């Protein structure tokens, strides 16, 4: 019987693994977790970035579309797996990655961009934020600080640990962290759920914060499956964040979310309730969505919203003030692909958010595999008010500017 055979194999594997490394057998990859029996042979799969980058001259840049009066151009290329962006006081742009181990610095010298590898040998350093002369980096398991790094790009200071022990179980999924500095001087970061749809531990599926002075950690928002982008509203100072919904519930369910934290400790539903109104088929039994905070805006299923920034610059037209720019990495767990763009969130007189297209053209064939030639990850407002957009699939950073008429 195949069951017996599988059981025997499992036993053997357990024994062999235990003897080798004293650890349990590896679970299915986190992206496969939660599939039902019919989905086991699904051709849907996540896309891997070109880890060695691709030259912008080889890409169909003419497909990129921005609203009238705006212009999009390649700002820098050759930045392998460019993920999160942070702006130094002196204009250096720091760029992170997730599957590599480096942090890059891009320095603008009279319009020529020089890319330096400033930090090496890190563990999934996806989160970067710059504040008052210090670069903070969120790795898989710790947050570190590099004081005065912008004056020492060729001989960066040694890492000082702000907090460590952030990944005690070496979690298989959602181990990469976004990092941002709050208006309260505390560092905010996500601890994702360890799989697609699993019961998280007490500190997983949260947005947490740490005081860099004391190292004290607090949970700020709960029930957040994984957020890889947040920012504070310039007036209300409330934290807005993007969140990826679970996979394998179908092409159109559930929606990814834009959320706002109004009170510390609010619970946003995972793993019980998705998109504010849809109970999970397994974890939602005997629960009610009314227990949880619903999203401020539904973003569409599987669109994978990542970095967001409120726009406060002077370059774009006045109606862009206070809008959110949001990078959407694009869907994989959907037969017809969507996302792969930068969208603009506007607010009406009652503060109700609404999505509008902003930068499109990466998605070229929604039925193809792969369907896109580029994937936005983060957005960054520059001092002149222009907007940088990172693309980890190609290792490219684009710049969107507005020419006044």
């Amino acid at each position, binding site marked *: 019987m195949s069951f017996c055979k599988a059981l025997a194999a499992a036993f053997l594997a357990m024994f062999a693994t235990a003897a080798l490394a004293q650890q349990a057998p590896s679970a299915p990859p986190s992206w496969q977790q939660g599939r039902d029996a019919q989905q086991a042979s699904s051709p849907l799969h996540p896309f891997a970035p*070109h*880890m060695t980058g691709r030259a912008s001259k080889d890409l169909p840049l003419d497909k990129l579309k921005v609203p009238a009066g705006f212009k999009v151009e390649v700002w820098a290329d*050759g930045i*392998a797996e460019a993920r999160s962006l942070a702006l130094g006081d002196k204009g250096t742009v720091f760029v992170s990655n997730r599957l590599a181990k480096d942090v890059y610095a891009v320095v603008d010298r009279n319009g020529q961009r020089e890319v330096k590898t400033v930090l090496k040998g890190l563990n999934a350093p996806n989160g970067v934020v710059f504040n008052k002369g210090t670069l903070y980096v969120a790795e898989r398991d710790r947050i570190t600080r590099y004081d005065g790094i912008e004056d020492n790009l060729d001989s960066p200071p040694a890492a000082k640990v702000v907090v460590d022990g952030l990944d005690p179980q070496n979690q298989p999924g959602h181990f990469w962290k976004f990092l941002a500095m709050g208006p309260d001087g505390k560092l905010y970061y996500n601890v994702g759920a360890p799989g697609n749809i699993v019961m998280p531990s007490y500190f997983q599926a949260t947005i947490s914060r740490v005081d860099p002075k004391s190292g004290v950690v607090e949970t700020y928002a709960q029930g957040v499956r994984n957020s890889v982008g947040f920012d504070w509203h310039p007036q209300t100072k409330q934290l807005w964040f993007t969140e990826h919904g679970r996979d394998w519930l179908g092409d159109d369910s559930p929606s990814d979310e834009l959320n706002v934290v109004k009170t510390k400790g609010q619970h946003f539903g995972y793993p019980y309730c998705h998109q504010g109104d849809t109970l999970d088929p397994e974890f939602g039994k005997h629960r009610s969505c009314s227990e949880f905070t619903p999203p401020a805006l539904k973003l569409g299923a599987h669109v994978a919203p990542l970095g967001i920034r409120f726009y406060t610059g002077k370059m774009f037209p006045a109606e862009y003030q206070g809008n959110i720019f949001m990078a959407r990495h694009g869907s994989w767990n959907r037969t017809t692909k969507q996302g792969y763009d930068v969208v603009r969130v506007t607010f009406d007189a009652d503060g109700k958010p609404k999505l509008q297209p902003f930068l499109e053209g990466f998605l070229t064939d929604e039925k193809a595999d792969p369907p896109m030639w580029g994937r936005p990850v983060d957005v960054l407002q520059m001092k002149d008010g222009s907007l940088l957009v990172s693309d980890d699939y190609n290792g490219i950073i684009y710049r969107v500017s507005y020419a006044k008429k």
Partner: protein
Amino acid sequence: MNGSFCNAGAAACAAALCLLTGIALAADPQLCAACHGPEGNSVIPANPSLAGQPEQSISIQLFQFREGNRKDPQMTPIAANLSNKEMNELAAYFSKQKAAAPSHKTAPENAAAGPKLAQQFNCVQCHGPALRGQQHIPRLAGQQYDYLLAQLRKFKAQKRADLDGNMTSATEPLTDKDIEILIDYVAGLSPQ
């Protein structure tokens, strides 16, 4: 035979390649031929063919060697000196070469059992229905038997770099016998 040089001694081969890579080279694919065969069609059982592999699958493995995620006494020092651009050029070159028909002949009983196992253990889900690879996932069809066998065993022993954990997970339930049947089957498949 060109290949016997590398086969004879890894040290000699590595030394020769160190010498070659020591020169400031613009990633000349001919230098890879010593071990990977003419146009990337390997004639050495332990070394993989690169000809006709998906472009991204080649560049990502070179990246893994350079970053130390995947280790090999011969490939590690070679990749250490390659820039991203050179890796892309090599990947582009080899992906465009025609993969030669395999010399391996699948045993008749494994030609029948292999496809079932490839389905059962989800090989086809990522490597494709004809196991010819896609994007960052390598072609298995017609690849060198010894190379494939060694890699699958390393994945199972959790001793080979795995970008996303998929292969470590996929090999977990495989028995030694499953591995032998699967490799005998895929090594004999037509690469195109």
